[in-house]
């Protein structure tokens, strides 16, 4: 397989990315990643006879494209689990990295066509909305946790014109206790294979009363995942008081997962976060993006002031 990133094949969305999910592979935390796929429409109203080719794109821990492989097909009334930790290269890597699972509808891209070159229209994007993948993290021989999500439309994709991508995340899913920890998993993916913007991410950890317990700043490179245990950011004497996080980036849209791990008894669970604009239902939808952008600017200003 080629070891360099593929060039952008065209200016639009391809069949490869029509239904895809970026997936964290996290061997550094001793976790195994599986992906569960369905051949059915989750809403049971569309594409009753559709079959999908399943493809897996792998990256190394530096975000370099490693390869893409076919994992066969999933069709109507079928469910499949895929051991992504084993399948996603490079072989033997013990570093956290990104993989992307794709479902390519056969009706859009026949078997002999290259899905990374088959451009699809806006209608296809809309009509395949809400096809999601189950992402499961498990402790070998032990419990597992899972979540379901998909790649947001046009994620960090500026091929069809300049587009400011940003991120604002907040979450109350933080608990730190002896033997138990919450981690923030940042997934930096793009539908543009040539996406090369590294994202500066700033994060604040708060206690129950809203006081800042810790600050963190890091660069998350494209096509990588970054896992930050909250306990490592906070003074050990205060760590159990951690209750929430706010994180933002002015450089890229990012997916954030919150992962809970427990040592004794062993347990793991995870949940996605909602994009902030989904909390806002204004009469003018453009307002939600203005509020989000203003909030990011204010948080950044406060950060620069040290408050």
């Amino acid at each position, binding site marked *: 397989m080629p070891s360099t990133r593929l060039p952008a094949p065209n200016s639009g969305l391809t069949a490869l990315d029509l239904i895809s999910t970026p997936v964290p592979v996290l061997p550094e935390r001793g976790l195994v990643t599986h992906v*569960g*796929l*369905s051949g*059915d*429409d*989750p*809403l*049971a109203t569309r594409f009753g006879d559709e079959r999908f080719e399943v493809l897996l794109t792998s990256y190394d821990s530096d975000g370099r494209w490693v390869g893409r492989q076919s994992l066969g097909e999933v069709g109507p*009334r*079928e*469910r499949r*689990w895929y051991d992504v930790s084993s399948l996603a290269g490079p072989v033997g890597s013990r570093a956290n990295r990104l993989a992307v699972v794709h479902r390519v509808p056969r009706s859009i891209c026949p078997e002999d066509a290259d899905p990374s070159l088959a451009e699809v229209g806006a209608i296809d994007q809309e009509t395949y909305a809400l096809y*999601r993948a189950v992402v499961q993290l498990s402790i070998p021989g032990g*419990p*597992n*946790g*899972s*979540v*379901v999500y998909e790649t947001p439309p046009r994620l960090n994709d500026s091929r069809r014109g300049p587009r400011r991508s940003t991120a604002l995340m*907040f*979450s*109350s*899913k933080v*608990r730190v*206790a*002896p*033997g*138990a920890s919450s981690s923030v998993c940042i997934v930096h993916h793009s539908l543009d294979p040539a996406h090369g913007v590294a994202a500066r991410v700033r994060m604040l950890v*708060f206690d*129950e009363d*809203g006081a800042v317990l810790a600050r963190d700043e890091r660069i998350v490179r494209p096509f990588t995942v970054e896992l930050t245990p909250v306990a490592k950011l906070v003074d050990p004497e205060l760590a159990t008081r951690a*209750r*929430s996080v706010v994180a933002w980036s002015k450089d890229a849209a990012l997916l954030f997962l*919150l992962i*809970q791990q*427990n*040592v*004794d*008894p*062993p*347990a*793991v*669970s*995870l*949940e*996605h976060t*909602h994009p*902030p604009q989904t*909390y*806002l*239902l*204004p*009469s*003018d*939808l453009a*307002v939600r993006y203005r509020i*989000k952008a203003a*909030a990011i600017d*204010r*948080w950044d200003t406060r950060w620069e002031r040290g408050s």
Partner: protein
Amino acid sequence: VTIVGQVARRALHALPLTLQDRLRVLAGRPVDPRFGRVGTTLDLYYWLVEDDIDTLVPIENYFSVFFPDLDTATTAEVRVLDRDGKHLGGTTVSVGHMAVPTVQVSSLVDKIDRPAYGNLTWHLAVPEAVRAALVEAGTPMLFWDRSYIGYAGVGGVAAFVHGVDKTEVVTETGQRRPWPMGASDSFVARPELPVRLDDYERIDVVLQNRALAARSVSLTATDEVGRVVEHCEVIPPLGVRRVEIDRAWAAGLDVGGSLRLGIEGLPTRFGRPLVMKRFAPGVFSLMHC
């Protein structure tokens, strides 16, 4: 254009709420003027209290995130319902700027027999400074509290999951209105999760009725050769039912492979079920399907 717009708006307001709501969503304008200039919509959350599990309600002041320079201190009202949607208890808590006070559900329902489960909502009031800023800017806004509920097990085990779809709207004047849904709305869900009973002791499928009328809901599990087990429930208004799937429940199915679930009769399309995987007493994880 203005006159045409006014006529269209009046015509829209004359429509039944559910149809009106749909048209507004289609038009990309989801705020209904009857909810007021600034309101909130609430999700429905599942709670359970058992010997080894308690439910945590972490009330995050998300207004602070959007308006970090405003005084966003406010209050939250937690309402706990039993599995039949009947009021069980509740509390009101102060929520400071960027604060996340956490309510343990066991403290609100201490008089009931365990194990128990039900639904709950919480309403985080729009802070006055936020309301005033939006009104001054002429920006009608319905906030959607898409928050998370937590579950605490043994030895520090914890898991969080988001709420299930819009259930109720609290208007600017504090009136509570059900989220618009049709009396006959009845959706089908085909969860993506491949259910593998070798991976856990059992899996609970949680079915919540967000409607103000009883709804008939069916749950099916189908094995890889097409054999089916079906379970039907009539769920009272704002009630919840939990179907506990283990090997005994799935007797007759080939559980060596993956089972697929099907749910019919849920009143809102995005109110798909919650599942809770049980690995041992007090050890679990959860997800929405």
